[in-house]
């Protein structure tokens, strides 16, 4: 390696370390507070946790039916992720083709993105009620079964696949559905990974919708359950941060699992055509 390249690499590392540090400082603070019960508003702030303990994490299991909430969250997120991959891939593929009214459909999708959830609470509840899906897993998952951002991710990924491959498959007599599954999806691993990660995060962290739609405590999801837990303890102690960490952990886990797809994509260099 030449000196120039080595310096370039050092610079890159330096920049990345700097940015990473900025990202991590708040996390260190969260973790530090999650393992203590100190008054977080005291001055001066302490850099190291004093008398760390894991009680905050343990308390969660005692105060609320944690396994049940965890199960609910897992089921709902599983439904959401599975449907997202299926529906978004289908819609993304359809959008790569030209058809009359395509611009209208694109506009429709884009505008749907611009409608905030807070403005839809009451009608969404009434609609879900009419569908008879209140207090149910499907009801919890329904509004998130497809997301426009992820449709566009698939669309972009499919468009990047050379037409020659698709044409060849069509000549071979594959049906459209087969084309998606056999040809496009394997070449869009990164897009699938992104879909999985995002759909999981959005459904896992959802708070307002489950709050409205579940009345029975047994159907509540983890963020709701953990917010319940906070009512037992002060909002300013480490309990809050233990809460944040516990809700965060699965999402990070999913990301790390899906992350490998990015690496594979990198090393293969996306060699197509």
């Amino acid at each position, binding site marked *: 390696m030449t000196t120039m390249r080595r310096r370039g690499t050092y610079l890159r590392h330096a920049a990345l370390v700097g940015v990473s540090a900025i990202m991590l400082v708040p996390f260190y603070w969260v973790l530090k507070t999650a393992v203590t019960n100190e*008054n977080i*508003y*005291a*001055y001066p702030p302490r850099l190291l946790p004093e008398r760390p303990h894991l009680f905050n994490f343990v308390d969660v299991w005692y105060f609320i039916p944690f396994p049940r909430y965890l199960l609910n969250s897992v089921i709902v997120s599983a439904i959401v992720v599975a449907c997202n991959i299926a529906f978004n891939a289908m819609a993304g593929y359809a959008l790569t083709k030209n058809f009359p009214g395509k611009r209208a459909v694109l506009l429709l999708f884009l505008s749907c993105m611009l409608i905030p959830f807070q403005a839809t*609470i*009451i009608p969404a*509840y*009434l609609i879900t*009620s009419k569908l008879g899906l209140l207090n149910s897993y499907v009801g919890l998952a329904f509004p998130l079964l497809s997301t426009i951002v992820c449709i566009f991710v698939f669309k972009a990924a499919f468009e990047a696949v050379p037409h020659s491959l698709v044409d060849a498959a069509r000549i071979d007599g594959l049906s459209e559905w087969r084309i998606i599954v056999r040809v496009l999806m394997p070449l869009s691993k990164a897009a699938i990974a992104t879909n999985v990660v995002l759909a999981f995060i959005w459904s896992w962290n959802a708070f*307002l919708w489950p*709050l*409205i739609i579940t*009345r029975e405590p047994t159907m509540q999801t983890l963020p709701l359950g953990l*917010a*319940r837990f906070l*009512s*037992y303890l*002060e*909002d*300013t102690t480490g309990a809050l941060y233990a809460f944040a960490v516990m809700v965060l952990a699965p999402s990070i886990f999913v990301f790390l699992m899906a992350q490998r797809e990015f690496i594979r994509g990198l090393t293969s260099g996306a060699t197509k055509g």
Partner: protein
Amino acid sequence: MISRRTLLKSGTGAVVSVLAMPAIAQAPKKISFLTWNIIDQEPMIRGWIARFVKDRPGVEVEWLDKKGPEIPVFYQTQLAAGTPPDVINTQGALGLEYAAQGALLDLTPRLKADAAARDRFNADYLSNWAYEGNNYMLPFYITKTLLFYNKPLFQKAGLSAPPHSFDAILDAAQKMTTADASGFLTLNFDWLYWPLYAMNGIDLLSKDLAKPTFNTPKAIEVTDRLAKATEAGAINKISWTGRWVEPNGAFAAGNVGMLHAHSPAYFFVKGQGKWVTPETLGVAHAPGGFATPNSHGLGISKASNNPDLAWDFLKFVTNEGAQELGVNRKLVTGNIAVDNKNLADLEKTDPLVYSILKTQLEHTDKMVGNWRLGNDSKVKEAFWPELQNVLLGRKDAKTALADAERKVARELKRG
């Protein structure tokens, strides 16, 4: 091919079995009970429900608990869908707003018919939820503002007693102000700061709640002085920018002379402040005895399918349940007999808490900041930001109060 005889036999059998079924095979009577962030008392409430249904076969009570910010969203959605909880617990003026909205059952006829139930409660607090002359809620637990003060800081500044006038407050605050300490802090949500104006003879609205009456030279002067004191650091700025955690936390940190807050603040401050002991924490009324209440009430949704059962439950909770609530949560329930008994016990076991809770039952005729407005939050939204602008030095008092007057008048006209 079924013979006619078999048909007749089975038909008769069916009819007989139907007639033999228990005469009352109704679905269980169910009511739902929504509480405001009281889940730490889960065993107590479950106990109430168990005792309530024991004497009433076929009755079920569903209990829901939500945190404060979640309740409006939850309740309004349920209201729009036609399935609101039968018995609901609200804080502050929200009960009045729901009453004005038409969501709550008018309890006046029931209270008239059941004088014992009505007389159980402190009349001044009961009238907190009287909208247009009708009662819509019963007290669940009640609080109002008082003055906490840091005795060591008072002594250090050479002050011997808590202030007895508005001027004295500002004076004392100024004396206790140093580079690290401030003299006075108040909570600001739900009109909790209003006693500062009431003690200067300022009224927000006319008696008929139709016109704003706060744009007076006196009010301008008071606001100006508050703003100047804030700028000088005598009044801690968090008074006007914080909500619950910041102001109480600041007082708990031990470098604020006075805290003007309602009684639950004590428990937060005690939890966070290592300096708090009966010797170091002073308790007093605000000058003039003026206080803003911030109480929790229980009401019945008009859309309830079982209003009588809900009323039964309401009476049960505020009577049989009140005792336990008062003891567990160390608060005043508004139920006269229960409160007298609990306070008598507390005087021996925890004199400091006793002195705090005693203030909640004194000067109940001097409660201010609780106008019976059906559009309380709109009026608040029209008034408070303007006031905040002055107190934080962004606007002068004269312009801000004039602007606020205009906005409040608009809201009142809209009704």
